[in-house]
């Protein structure tokens, strides 16, 4: 049985960043990296970008690290292998092919999976989800042979895919269960701005849609709603959220909720096991609650911190463990509109929303406050304020007497820092 000083499950940005940082801090210790996909690090973010799909960016750009990088850094890449069991007592990870790997320190950076659409007919050819490079390749191939497409879901995958499909010259319908796009993360004013941009770009949005089935033969031909409406489409991309495939960990006794639970050091409930990236549901020191924030930026930062703490736990000289303290953010753009999400944007009864700007000036934000402090914001065509808002959240700035300033779109937020 191979045994690694550091074993990482997950070859995405969290896992690979962790491997890189471990190697920087421990030149000798063996590092193994197990990935269920056969691929070295690629840009999962690129997978939903129109320029990539329409091949305006060469496909090769998707690769962020090649096999030579793993070799050069003496990281054993174990690709195309799925982890199926964890024995935390004997410190052994089991793989689907029967192989077993020993570890001293283990990082779970397994990510999340696309939630499967389970209406009748959703298994027909032409129905896609988007998580892996294979998914991306299949969609690139499909767009070349169809005329009508639909996206299902009211979030960023659906938004970016609709933009891409439209740019590819297809007729595009967007099917959402909600009353407006991006409900409830965006408020209605923001959601309607996004919808206006989308419909202005030639996309048809079908709201409050309850899908009965995907009609067709072997291949999808239409989405049929419960009210009888038929939306003809030969291709459907689903972006209806994520699920965390943590069943394989249950027998280890690790504590999970929606994700794998960790403290602020990204330590799980098991000794010598950490979690990072989309899979981690961590104690957020800024928000003072346990959250899961799946995005590239968080995954990168968590990989870095987990690595630091794994190496520090070996007693390496001069290294102390470090808490993960970070305001997460991500942005998207399409249909001529840019949307940024900063910090905690979940709606809730304790949240006060301050509006900043307006649809009239095509620039609008919702600043979200709990108590005296900012916890999050969504920004439409105001991405330039992302950094200041992240700092206001990070520094726990008391804004209780600054509502007027926050609601003035011309007020320079730097002055509050």
């Amino acid at each position, binding site marked *: 049985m191979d045994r690694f000083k550091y074993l990482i499950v997950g070859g995405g*940005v969290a896992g690979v*960043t962790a491997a890189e940082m471990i190697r920087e801090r421990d030149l000798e210790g063996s590092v193994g990296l197990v990935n269920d996909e056969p691929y070295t690090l690629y*840009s*999962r*973010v*690129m997978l939903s*970008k129109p*320029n990539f799909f329409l091949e305006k*960016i060469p496909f090769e*750009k998707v690769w*962020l690290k090649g096999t030579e990088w793993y070799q050069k850094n003496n990281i054993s890449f174990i690709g195309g292998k799925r982890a199926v069991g964890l024995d935390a007592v004997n410190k052994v990870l089991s793989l689907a092919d029967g192989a077993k790997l020993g570890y001293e320190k283990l990082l779970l950076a397994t990510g999340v999976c696309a939630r499967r659409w389970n209406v009748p007919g959703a298994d027909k050819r032409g129905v896609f989800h988007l998580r892996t490079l294979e998914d991306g390749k299949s969609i690139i191939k499909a767009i070349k042979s169809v005329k009508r497409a639909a996206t299902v879901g009211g979030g960023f995958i659906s938004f970016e895919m609709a933009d891409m499909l439209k740019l590819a010259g297809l007729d595009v319908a967007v099917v959402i269960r909600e009353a407006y796009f991006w409900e409830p993360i965006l408020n209605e004013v923001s959601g309607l701005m996004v919808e206006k941009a989308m419909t202005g770009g030639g996309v048809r949005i079908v709201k409050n849609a309850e899908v009965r089935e995907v009609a067709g033969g072997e291949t999808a031909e239409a989405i049929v709603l419960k009210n009888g409406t038929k939306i003809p489409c030969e291709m459907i991309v689903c972006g209806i959220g994520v699920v965390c495939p943590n069943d394989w960990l249950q027998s280890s006794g690790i504590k999970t909720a929606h994700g794998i639970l960790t403290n602020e050091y990204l330590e799980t409930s098991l000794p010598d096991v950490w979690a990072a990236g989309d899979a981690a549901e961590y104690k957020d020191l800024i928000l003072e609650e346990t959250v899961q924030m799946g995005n*590239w*930026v968080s995954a*990168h*930062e968590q990989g870095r911190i987990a690595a630091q703490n794994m190496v520090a736990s070996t007693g390496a000289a001069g290294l102390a463990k470090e808490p993960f303290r*970070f305001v997460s*953010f*991500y*942005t*998207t*753009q399409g249909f001529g509109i*840019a949307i*940024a999400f900063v910090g905690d944007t979940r709606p809730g009864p304790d949240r006060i929303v301050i509006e900043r700007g307006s649809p009239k000036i095509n620039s609008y934000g919702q600043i979200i406050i709990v108590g005296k402090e900012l916890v999050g914001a969504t920004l439409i*065509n*105001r*991405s*330039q304020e*992302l*950094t200041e808002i*992240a*700092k206001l959240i990070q520094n726990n700035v008391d804004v209780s007497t600054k509502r007027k300033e926050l609601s003035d779109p011309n007020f320079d937020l730097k002055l509050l820092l």
Partner: protein
Amino acid sequence: MANLKEYPRNRAGSKIGKIVIDRDLCIGAASCIAVSAETYELDGENKVVVKGPNAVDDDVLIMSAESCPTRAILLFDAAGNQIYPK
């Protein structure tokens, strides 16, 4: 033609003489900002601009470029040779 924006750097002791942002590739993922908010910010087009080319040392700057999911940050030495991506 690629839409490149160049930012000269003259930090003492640095091997990096220029930061270049490929605005066609930049998608505003903002991971570089997470690594170094002193160096980068987003503009109104959701693209990264360099506000502090001399703010951080080479290690941090390279890490910020490596964090980019579209490799939109290019680093050059003083002689104009590309250091990253290699």
